[in-house]
């Protein structure tokens, strides 16, 4: 064990509200040694960020440390005067926040922002400070950093801004770096780059890092030890591998079990923790997890467990009824299902497509609705066809607002979705997946191509025809706050679709609403409530219920769970799957989270900069990716498994997304592709078939394409 740089001892922090006190952090102790990364994980509101802010003594209004000690290299921080603390902040302890847009001053060139920080703590000249600023910029990976000192924050991308934030944090070579969700706002490819950078710098500078995150995948790969927080308490602490392999706290176990894995069997229901975390203004008297814990007894509800050691050094947990090791990945809905083997063999039968997955598992689970519904004849036409869809936004400039360029949001995308199927769309932000989703439900107008539902081109419909067609095309939104009208009660929100479409009488509408509410697991009393009275997960359930009121055939779900906490996420995912079966829905799921898309989808389309680069069945795309972008995305998606995460050290996709105004010539991915050659810049790769229904656009694919004869047969069928 190295010398502890930071020691936190029974820290308690409270936040005084106008009428109540939030006991945000209670009796938290931990220490971080030199060159060590401590992961602090937990769901939102568990007190992990407040712990970080307590160390910086930068608590929000009304927040104060009530007891405990924080020692930085032996020096007590809690009792320091504000003036003394100022010389510690940024100098000995530095912090990187989630939102780099609001953390940087938009009116100041970045060189000055970094050098000011240096000059605040070191007596150096302006010139010398600027030189040091350039040094720290090159440290975080900016080539020709001295040329960029005069640039303003808006001239950088999100990933670059996060690098600048790190450069500012590191400019005074702090002993401790607190990274509060440093990559949550970033794409997976950029996330991998930033995390790699943090790791690299930690080793080079010998810092201690406190990595605050909600993402178990991030800590799995980067932390040496992990503290799991729940409702203001540390419930378990252990070295990373030990924690993931032999956790003892039921919350740790449940949290891990509720994350969909890339290797997850789609037929399995995800584990989910019932209910929502407790209100920290009135925390429950006993174990704070007891109300949601399946193992809770009367003792748990009355007496709060304290951290107790295990036989493994440094592994402590606070539970009266500990578990041992991870939960089996299967949550058995019925006894017969227990027999299903958890992991599927990595080399599935080459037959591909959905059939393979079902054939591969010996004990067939309930067949996915896809196959049940596929039995209904659809006149040979797929339910939803997107054919060469194009959407470009004009970029206007000058006094006359002339169009100077276009943002090619969606360029020539084609795919089809069968009835009862779930089609997943993945890609980095800005790849056009949301625009495509809006095109499907008719919220955006196509510039070219067509979107056809049951063979009818919806862009050719008159306004009146489209209105009734919309019943079959509904959307579920990402933001559970913005998607519900704050001035409407839930009853009115759910009634709105029926009123707009003129469906049913008041009584029958009410019956539908009551049914839907119980179906999505909300109490009937919810009807009279306003959206702000619900938690995020509950709001997302309301959003799903609203999408279902008209009994649609297709639901486009745009990042349905991205705004939710892990334990809530699995509840909503399970709900979506169940409702799909009950209502024989067809989903188009849009997400940047590969595990979520994989868990929900039967087939997947990968988008890059407005283009569909690969499309195929889930197993084809994940096990045998053809396009280098797909392979890179899969490799960078963080998985909550330390062995997998620690083994992938090299950054799979370099660089950042080019501008969609001037996409690269030829293959749009070529600027970031490891296999790019001259041909890629000259010619746009055509979509080629690699398997039954598995297509990709790449000149130098990772798999051998099908023989031309097969290919012709294939293209004919598509």
């Amino acid at each position, binding site marked *: 064990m190295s010398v502890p740089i930071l020691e936190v001892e029974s820290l308690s922090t409270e936040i005084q*509200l*106008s009428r109540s006190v939030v006991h945000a952090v209670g009796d938290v102790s931990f220490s971080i040694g030199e060159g060590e990364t401590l992961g602090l994980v937990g769901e939102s509101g568990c007190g992990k960020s407040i712990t970080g802010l307590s160390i910086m003594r930068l608590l929000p209004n009304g927040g104060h440390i009530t007891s405990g000690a924080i020692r930085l290299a032996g020096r007590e921080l809690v009792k320091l005067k504000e003036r003394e603390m100022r010389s510690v902040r940024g100098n000995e302890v530095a912090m990187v926040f989630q939102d780099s847009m609001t953390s940087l001053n938009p009116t100041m060139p970045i060189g000055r922002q970094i050098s000011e920080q240096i000059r605040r703590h070191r007596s150096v000249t302006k010139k010398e400070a600027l030189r040091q600023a350039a040094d720290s910029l090159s440290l975080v990976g900016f080539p020709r950093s001295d040329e960029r000192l005069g640039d303003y924050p808006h001239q950088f991308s999100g990933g670059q801004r996060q690098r600048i934030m790190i450069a500012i944090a590191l400019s005074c070579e702090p002993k401790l770096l607190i990274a509060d969700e440093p990559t949550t706002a970033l794409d997976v490819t950029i996330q991998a780059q930033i995390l790699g950078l943090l790791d690299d710098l930690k080793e080079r500078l010998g810092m201690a890092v406190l990595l605050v995150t909600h993402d178990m995948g991030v800590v799995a790969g980067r932390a040496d030890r992990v503290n799991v927080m729940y409702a203001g308490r540390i419930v378990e602490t252990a070295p990373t591998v030990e924690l993931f392999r032999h956790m003892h706290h039921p919350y740790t176990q449940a949290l891990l079990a509720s994350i969909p894995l890339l290797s997850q069997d789609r037929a399995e229901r995800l584990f989910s923790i019932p209910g929502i975390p407790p209100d920290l203004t009135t925390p429950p008297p006993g174990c704070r997890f007891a109300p949601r814990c399946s193992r809770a007894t009367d003792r748990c509800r009355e007496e709060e467990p304290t951290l107790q050691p295990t036989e493994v050094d440094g592994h402590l947990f606070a539970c009266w009824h500990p578990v041992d090791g991870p939960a089996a990945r299967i949550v058995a*809905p019925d006894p017969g299902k227990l027999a299903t083997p958890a992991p599927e063999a990595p080399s599935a039968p080459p037959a591909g497509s959905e059939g393979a997955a079902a054939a591969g598992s010996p004990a067939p689970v309930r067949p996915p609705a896809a196959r049940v519904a596929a039995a209904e004849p659809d006149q040979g036409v797929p339910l939803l066809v997107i054919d060469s869809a194009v959407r470009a936004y004009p970029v206007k400039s000058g006094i006359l607002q002339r169009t100077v360029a276009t943002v090619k949001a969606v360029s020539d995308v084609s795919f089809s979705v069968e009835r009862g199927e779930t089609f997943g769309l993945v890609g980095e932000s800005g790849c056009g997946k949301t625009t495509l989703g809006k095109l499907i439900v008719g919220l955006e107008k196509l510039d070219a191509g067509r979107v056809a539902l049951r063979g009818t081109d919806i862009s050719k419909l008159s306004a009146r025809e489209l209105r009734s067609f919309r019943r079959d095309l*509904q959307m579920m939104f990402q933001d559970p706050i*913005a*998607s519900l009208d*704050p001035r409407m009660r839930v009853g009115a929100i759910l009634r709105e679709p029926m009123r707009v479409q003129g469906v049913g009488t008041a009584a029958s509408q009410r019956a539908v609403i009551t049914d839907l509410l*119980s179906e999505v697991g909300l109490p009937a009393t919810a009807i009279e409530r306003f959206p702000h009275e619900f938690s995020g997960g509950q709001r997302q359930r309301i959003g799903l219920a609203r999408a279902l009121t008209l009994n649609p055939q297709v639901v486009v779900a745009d990042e349905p769970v991205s705004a939710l906490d892990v334990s809530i996420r699995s509840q909503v995912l399970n709900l979506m799957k169940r409702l799909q079966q009950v209502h024989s829905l067809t989903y188009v799921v849009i997400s940047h989270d590969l595990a979520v898309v994989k868990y929900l989808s039967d087939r997947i389309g990968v988008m890059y900069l407005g283009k569909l680069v690969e499309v195929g069945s889930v197993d084809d795309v994940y096990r045998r990716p053809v396009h280098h972008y797909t392979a890179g995305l899969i490799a960078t998606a963080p998985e909550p498994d330390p062995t997998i995460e620690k083994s992938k050290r090299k950054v799979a996709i370099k660089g950042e997304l080019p501008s969609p105004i001037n996409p690269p010539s030829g293959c749009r991915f070529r600027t970031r592709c490891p296999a790019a050659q001259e041909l890629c810049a000259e010619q746009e790769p055509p979509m080629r078939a690699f398997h039954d229904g598995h297509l990709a656009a790449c000149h130098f694919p990772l798999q051998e394409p099908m023989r031309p004869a097969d290919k012709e047969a294939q293209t004919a069928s598509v």
Partner: protein
Amino acid sequence: MTVSSSVGELADEASIDPGVFLPDAGEVQGPKATWRLAARSFRDNRLAVVGTGILVFFFLFCFVGPLIYHTNQISTNIANAYYPPSAKHLLGTDGNGFDELGRIMVGGQAALEIGLFSSFIATVLGTLVGAVAGLLGGVVDAILMRIVDVLLSVPLLFVILIIGDRFSNATVLSLSLIIGSFSWLVSARLVRGEVLSLRERDFIFASRTMGASRHHLIYKHLIPNALGVVIVNITFQVADAINLLAILGFLGYGLQYPQVSWGDMLSGALNYLPDGYWWVVYPVGICLVLVVMACNFVGDALRDTVDVRLRRR
């Protein structure tokens, strides 16, 4: 646990193993009724309570006061001019021999009536123009907003003075119309901005995927959500109108005699301040300041209260 049991029943109907059902979404942790929350946050704001108190007082003072405190506000009596405060005339008399306290009551009636009525006109007009411009966008928006820009760049006072000169026998109604028709500009901009941001919210998209008409969007979503800003704006507009009225009165373009507003009273009295007739200036001036200030207090508090997004949990 009525919920889970009803979920269970549903499960059976759908002939699906109840074990597959996920547990209920947890209790709704919501606080009390919304209006009660709003009232609480309003009460928390001391200035708002003070402001409301002042406004209530002045309404009673101006409209109920004359019923209790009888004075002659019709016939002048020069012999009574400029009596200092006494038991007979609590605030003395003015240059025409009117009882000053009674005069303030009458003048306040006009001020409050014009303030409310003109801000009503301004709000209706402004909301309509703003909502149409914001929702339709494009050419309509451009034209309407340019009109607003042009009108905003015309010195309002001059225009009102010129109009006031033309219609020299101003009444409560005509002054309200003139002030109202020139003060809708700010609320139009405000509502347009609100509608522009609301238009891009997900719940509007959700409503559009249901096939909602423009009419539905405006009446069910945009107006209810923009109402907060509008209500807040009304209070500020009342304050502005009362001030403007006072300025007009002071410049001599006030109400036709024997009608009177606070501005007219100030204008007539200010000349006599050097003579020591403080009671014809300060009381009415203080009333004016108090009412305008109270309107602003209430407006500030309403802004915090009405906005659901700012509401504490």
